[in-house]
């Protein structure tokens, strides 16, 4: 049996594979659990932002999926240790479907696993220079600017935007992609 203190040291120095994490968590190693949270929480959060469009809901998703995953790992229910990411993604998909129905279960699990361990991680999205962005958006061609604004502000469907522009959805995709590349180039971000 590996001493937990030894594992803690190793975890801070070496990139553990998902498979290693699964094995260590099954052995009851707490630092491995912390590493699981550090690794998976940002990925779950992005999934949550994409599908729930709300930061608090995304944080709830992170909490719920992590405790579900931890519960499964501790109980040895993740049999294919190299499929940890797939397991977490699957949990995300299922949880988004019934997130609101599980409030009671979530509370019980929080009591069991500890709310401090599952506190929402600090949010740190990249900064965007708003003045530079305004200049870059204004430099776009008219159709590109319209597509970018309609897509990101309004989140209009491709059908709506293509009707407004009088172009096919395939052409719209080309215009949108060109505009995103130009914007990122103008903002000096590597595409």
């Amino acid at each position, binding site marked *: 049996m590996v001493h937990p203190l030894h594992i803690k040291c190793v975890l801070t120095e070496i*990139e553990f594979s998902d498979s290693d994490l699964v094995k260590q968590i099954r052995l009851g190693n707490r630092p491995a659990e912390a590493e699981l949270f550090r*690794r998976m929480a*940002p*990925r779950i959060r*992005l*999934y949550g*932002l*994409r599908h729930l469009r709300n930061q608090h809901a995304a944080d709830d998703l992170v909490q719920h999926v992590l405790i579900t995953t931890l519960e499964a790992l501790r109980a040895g229910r993740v049999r294919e240790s190299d499929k940890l*990411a*797939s397991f*977490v*993604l699957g949990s995300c998909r299922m949880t988004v479907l019934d997130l609101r129905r599980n409030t009671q279960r979530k509370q019980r699990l929080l009591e069991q696993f500890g709310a401090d361990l599952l506190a929402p991680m600090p949010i740190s*999205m*990249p*900064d*965007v220079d*708003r003045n530079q*962005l*305004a200049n870059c*958006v*204004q430099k776009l*061609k*008219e*159709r590109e*600017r*319209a597509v*970018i*604004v*309609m*897509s*990101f*502000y*309004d*989140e*209009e469907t*491709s059908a*709506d935007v293509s*009707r*407004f*522009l*009088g172009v096919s959805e395939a052409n719209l*995709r080309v215009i*949108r*992609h060109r505009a*995103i*590349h130009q*914007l*990122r180039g103008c*903002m000096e*971000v590597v*595409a």
Partner: protein
Amino acid sequence: MSCVKPLDATILADYWLALLPKSEEETVEEHLFACDECGARLEEVIALGDAIRDLARQGSLLMIVSDTFLGRIAKEDLHVREYAPTVGGSIACTVTSEDDFLIGRLTADLSGAKRVDLSLCDERGIERLRLADIPFNSEAGSVAFQQSITYARAAPSETMIARLVTLDEAGSEHLLGEYTFRHSRTLPGPGAW
């Protein structure tokens, strides 16, 4: 560890905007759950999208807008001031501190037009700015352009002539309509220029 097959920002933008086919979306998600490098790029796309949304809400972009866009603004309780001069006509206009968006609606017969430009001219008719190849719906019968509210708030009393022109295949311009906006400054203080 460096990603061997990074997802392009355009694909990530389409993913964020829910524009990918289901199968492609699932492939992207599987990649994102195994790749923090692409996750970081997605965060950049999200941040860019959020900033664009904020920028659009400020009403400071000079651009052509859709009625759907204007409807969405109205739902957000943002105040839109819209002027719709007739073709060849003139309209008195202003902007107040209560206004969030300033829209000019230009009616014109756009049927058959392949390309339309919006030319913005001073009171002498000299072109100061051109929005080339603007988006338009040939069946709509009008174009709505957003004047920067920041510009309008700072502007002194002045006259602007807007011209919608269509270009044929030979590159020759044909006037679709001319519209005169006579702006009176009503905000306190002098204009910025």
